[in-house]
């Protein structure tokens, strides 16, 4: 993870297009200015960043299902539950599955676990749109390479 840049996914561990599921790993850093404020003397991974991590995992799943031709944008978060604290240095496994693929939107369910035990979960809605510009598309392709997104799933042209 690189919290300052909102890089909340380290690598894709499993991506199953047929089952429409993804599992990713993310190592919470030991040090971050975020932990200096949240909270002094008791560092905790903020819940909003855990939600973002579930959204990013879900987003990569949706991008894969759309063959990298369109981009999901976070639209709504429902039933987000922070069940147990996440602390610096923990290795997160974030899993997501598709609940529904609508016209121009999609919904996923996602959860974060550590050592097989659940820490949080949410139901997330995304709006689906064309990549708004080449810069973002290029950034996402670079990110895809960094996290081990299957390169054969990236449509070109």
């Amino acid at each position: 993870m690189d919290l300052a840049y909102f890089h909340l996914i380290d690598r894709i561990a499993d991506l199953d297009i047929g089952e429409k599921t993804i599992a990713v790993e993310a190592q919470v850093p030991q040090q971050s200015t975020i932990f200096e404020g949240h909270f002094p003397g008791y560092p905790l991974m903020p819940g909003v960043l855990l939600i973002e991590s579930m959204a990013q995992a879900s987003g990569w799943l949706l991008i894969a299902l759309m063959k990298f031709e369109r981009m999901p944008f976070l639209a709504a978060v429902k039933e987000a539950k922070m069940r147990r604290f996440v602390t610096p240095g923990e290795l997160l496994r974030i899993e997501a599955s598709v609940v529904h693929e609508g016209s121009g939107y999609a919904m996923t369910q996602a959860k974060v676990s550590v050592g097989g035990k659940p820490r949080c979960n949410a139901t997330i809605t995304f709006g689906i749109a064309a990549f708004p510009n080449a810069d973002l598309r290029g950034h996402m392709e670079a990110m895809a390479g960094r996290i081990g997104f299957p390169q054969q799933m990236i449509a070109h042209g």
Partner: protein
Amino acid sequence: MSSTFDRVATIIAETCDIPRDTITPESHAIDDLGIDSLDFLDIAFAIDKAFGIKLPLEKWTQEVNDGKATTEQYFVLKNLSARIDELVAAKGA
């Protein structure tokens, strides 16, 4: 009125917390009921699930933006219900 309208009205009432008795076949989901695009995604999701279809929201939006259709054609509830019936019939054909 058709059972499709009743089901849609119930979905809207429950999804958007709108009193059921204020929802009529002539209601415009956006203009009369005040449903915005994000809330309409929840309605579309519920309709997709309830009827086993996929409301073509992107196609409809594009047609409206291109001036080829009016919002009334898709978002007045009696018309929305008719579109749903067509999609259900097409699925079963």
